[in-house]
């Protein structure tokens, strides 16, 4: 599994993952992903468009990092999952608690939109 990070103009940390987010994949990215999230700002986007496989163990990792960010007032978003990955996010309910966006542009637009009720 490969991981690349990129800081967007608005300060969002964009983490691109590529490969299988299975037990071996999670093990290989756990340290750099934790470091990227620790070093990043309050908003982190994980680009899943190159992730071909997501199993329970990958969900645990994403949820753990989402909680870490939420505790410090930040947020985690997921971007561009493939069909099978999107289905896994839906059926487990993850898509209801970690926002999923079609692409980075949609995620950026959502972050600039006024909060509901404001």
């Amino acid at each position, binding site marked *: 599994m490969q991981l690349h990070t990129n800081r967007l103009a608005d300060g969002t940390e964009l983490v691109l993952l590529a490969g299988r987010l*299975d*037990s071996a994949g999670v093990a290989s990215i756990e340290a750099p992903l934790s470091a990227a999230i620790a070093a990043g700002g309050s908003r982190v986007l994980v680009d899943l468009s190159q992730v071909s*496989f997501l*199993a*329970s*163990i990958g969900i645990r990792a994403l949820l753990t990092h989402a909680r870490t960010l939420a505790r410090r007032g930040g947020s985690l978003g997921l971007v561009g999952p493939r*069909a099978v990955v999107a289905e896994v996010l839906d*059926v487990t309910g993850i898509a*209801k608690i970690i926002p999923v966006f079609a692409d980075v542009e949609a995620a950026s637009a959502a972050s600039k939109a006024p909060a509901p009720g404001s």
Partner: protein
Amino acid sequence: MSGVRREAPHASSIVVRAGPEALSRVADWIRARGDAHALAPALLDRIDVCAAELVANVLEHGLGGAAGAPVRVALIVGEARVQLVIDDEAPAFDPLRRAPRASARMDESRVGGWGIAIVRHFAHELDYARTPNGNRLTATFLLDAGTARAAPR
């Protein structure tokens, strides 16, 4: 003897030993068998995820993390369906009898337990049987219009 010959469903299997390499060996084998049968990528993705969840379940719950026990994974490809069959030699363990997991919540302490929910979603049918030596879990996938075999290249 009938003059009509029907091709028998093609079955093949792999035996992995419980341990850190088991899941990646199963995944490599599933992808190779799926490609050999020209299964459509969308169907193969589903079978791949289910195999990972079911074998992980055996390793974690059925075998309690003990290494070395054999787990057999078979793929039976027929004309209308594909069956994924997982055989183990663990004590009786029926994952389908576990209570369904509620949707994840950000504030809950429990992390995990989604495997069977994922398998229930992707498989058309699931069947558990206690065998003389262990357990057998069969997941059936239909070769329907949405997940048929890939077009010949």
